[in-house]
């Protein structure tokens, strides 16, 4: 099956709309720097957190960022993304802290039910451990409200109790741009500067700012295990099953997360312009198309978020 690349060149990004989103995100990042003593920015190498880094440059350069970058590595990420993560952190000259789910398993903090279980949901424990280890009082993340309906409920400054839990029934009222950053020791805040951005805004911004992304986001040939309607990626660490039918397809990833739960979509979009054109006519939601972890139940994201997930 071939998918035609859309020939219609999209109009240039709506400048004022992106300017407003950018300005709001810079404001939020600066409020975070002012209101917390020890924040961290969660950087995975994915497109949203890469946009966050660009916004942090706009908020703080020529000074250094007032926070380190933190990545919770499931050990099941795509190697190209990890290489990108390391290179970007080095280019920026910012400190990158990596904590792995494997550490949490080795220390007995989490137990795998089966050896092949996806480690994606387990990263909440590793994240909370890292927050405790470094005494972070704020974690800046790239989650957006348009991604998923539990995320649609989240405040921009989203309070976590000393167990790292989100209580969606008792969120702090958040009026105007008056963010309440006050905490007791052991509690922390999750901060979402991209709350009001949509998937297309992210791509428009990547285009406007001429940002580099991991190559996985653009069309490439990849051997995949065909399981029902899902095209499942595999790697040396996570090989295909013996009974898998393997086919090479031209695909790209709309989200880049854990290899065990991130699926590509068939696409010929090889440039940012082509991705924008494709995104505008896409009929599937971003996570619905590509995340196995969100397909398990109507409330799967909410349940993970309550337990400390991003």
């Amino acid at each position, binding site marked *: 099956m071939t998918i035609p690349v859309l020939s219609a060149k999209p109009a240039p990004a709506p400048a004022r709309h992106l300017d407003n989103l950018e300005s709001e995100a810079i*404001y939020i990042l600066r409020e975070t720097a002012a209101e917390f003593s020890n924040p961290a920015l969660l950087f995975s190498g994915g497109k949203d957190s890469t946009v966050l880094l660009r916004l942090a440059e706009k908020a703080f350069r020529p000074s250094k960022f007032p926070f380190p970058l933190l990545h919770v590595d499931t050990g099941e990420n795509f190697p190209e993304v990890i290489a990108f993560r390391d290179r970007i952190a080095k280019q920026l000259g910012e400190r990158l802290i990596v904590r792995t789910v494997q550490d949490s398993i080795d220390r007995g903090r989490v137990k795998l039910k089966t050896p092949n279980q996806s480690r994606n949901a387990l990263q909440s424990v590793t994240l909370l451990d890292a927050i405790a280890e470094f005494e972070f009082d704020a974690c800046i993340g790239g989650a957006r409200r348009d991604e998923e309906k539990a995320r649609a409920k989240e405040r921009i400054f989203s309070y976590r109790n000393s167990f790292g839990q989100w209580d969606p*029934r008792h*969120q702090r009222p958040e009026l105007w741009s*008056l963010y309440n950053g006050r905490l007791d020791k052991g509690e922390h805040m999750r901060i979402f500067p991209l709350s009001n951005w949509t998937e297309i805004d992210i791509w428009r911004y990547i285009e406007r700012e001429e940002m580099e992304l991991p190559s996985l986001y653009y069309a490439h040939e990849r051997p995949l295990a065909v399981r029902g309607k899902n095209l499942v990626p595999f790697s040396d660490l996570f090989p295909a099953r013996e009974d898998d039918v393997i086919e090479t397809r031209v695909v790209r990833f709309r989200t880049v997360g854990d290899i065990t739960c991130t699926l590509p979509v068939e696409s010929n979009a090889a440039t940012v312009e082509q991705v924008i054109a494709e995104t505008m006519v896409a009929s599937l939601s971003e996570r619905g198309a590509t995340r196995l972890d969100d397909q398990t139940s109507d409330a799967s994201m909410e349940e993970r978020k309550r337990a400390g997930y991003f």
Partner: protein
Amino acid sequence: MAPLDQKMDTADDIGLLRFSTAGSVDDGKSSLIGRLLYDSKAVSTDRIAALERIARRKGEDVIDLSLLMDGLTVEREQGITIDVAYSYFATAQRKFIIADTPGHEQYTRNMVTGASTADAAVILVDAARGLSLQTRRHLYLSHLLGVPHLVVAVNKMDLVGFDKGAYDIVVASIEAFADAIGAKRTYIVPISAKHGDNVVNASTNMPWYEGQPLLALLEALPPAIVMHQAPFRFPVQLVRRVPVHGGEQIRQYLGRVESGHIKAGDEIAVMPAGRVTRVRAVSDFHGPLERGESGRSIAIEVQDELDIARGDVLTPPLLPPRVDDEFTATICWFSDDGFNGQGRYLVKCGTRTVAGRVAEIIYRLDVATLATEPNPETLRCNDIARVRIALAESLAFDAYDANRATGAFILIDADTNATVAAGMIALRDGEATAAGGSGFDVGL
């Protein structure tokens, strides 16, 4: 994302519209939003497929569009909205952000959270039941927050046989209430969210209605109040020291231009202290700016070595904000614990947080009847009251009706850190309002 997004770029001049929605239980609010999203093709096929699975499981032959909105498990279980959910869609004319807010009085704090940043409020009324207490509450709160446009959608017209007479009775009560609270720019549309009448498509069942369907109305609403005409206000967020050659450092003040604009050479006052200096440079990440426009996050350098810190407000010396250690304000109390006259609080206004207390409750307002109760000793959760706030130190501020950014504040409980109230600083006698101000003193 809607396919129509492509065309939206050409319509960027009219800009984004943020609107909040509110209604009483069973007014059909979630259905209305579901209908707006569905009919404007903003719902992805996987989400429609999920709704179809649910309908099959329940043995129903139509999908329930209201399920698109309630995002929390407990909300779906109870069939109510507890907290604001934000959703995003675009038509050929405009980009929209919907803040879907709860109707229950118990969750008023979440309703005002959604309405505080809205350009328009869409408030649902049940055509058969008429203007309820909650609807009055929503209309009043939206008006109090200065939401520029109030749109009342009279829903469930199908249940009254699409009858003009029934609609006219509801309209008369809405208009009477809007008059009483001094709300201008109120639009009223008869709809049936369930059947789609006058939501996206014009209704054939109500030929007597001459206005636009709801979506067309929202597409045509004038953009939000433009703050560049108001006096310059720049609450300082951070101070940055930048090394320059010769081992020296220059200081830059980081923040967002909340209103007006600024350029190199302009004279500015540092409030509340009142010291005056001149702007040496205005810049952003990309370099010097000819002018810092309202809404932009920028950096400002000044000519003189002054003590300028987070929380100070840079303003024109000739159009300064008020500076005082007390003010009168209308507040909405959020905390379940209520207010008993005690308690230590912090006031966050702009980027400044100072200790403060509720020095006097001037009156409590009954939102339904607009009656006032003078000098109550306590406040309960969700009470609206006029109060006098006393501060531990002087603050620079404006009346909310003159400037939302410098006229709004929150009260934080110093012991629990909870946001216990939100407030809008009142105009003084004879003070002029900005265009679009709510004038919420009316009738009192």
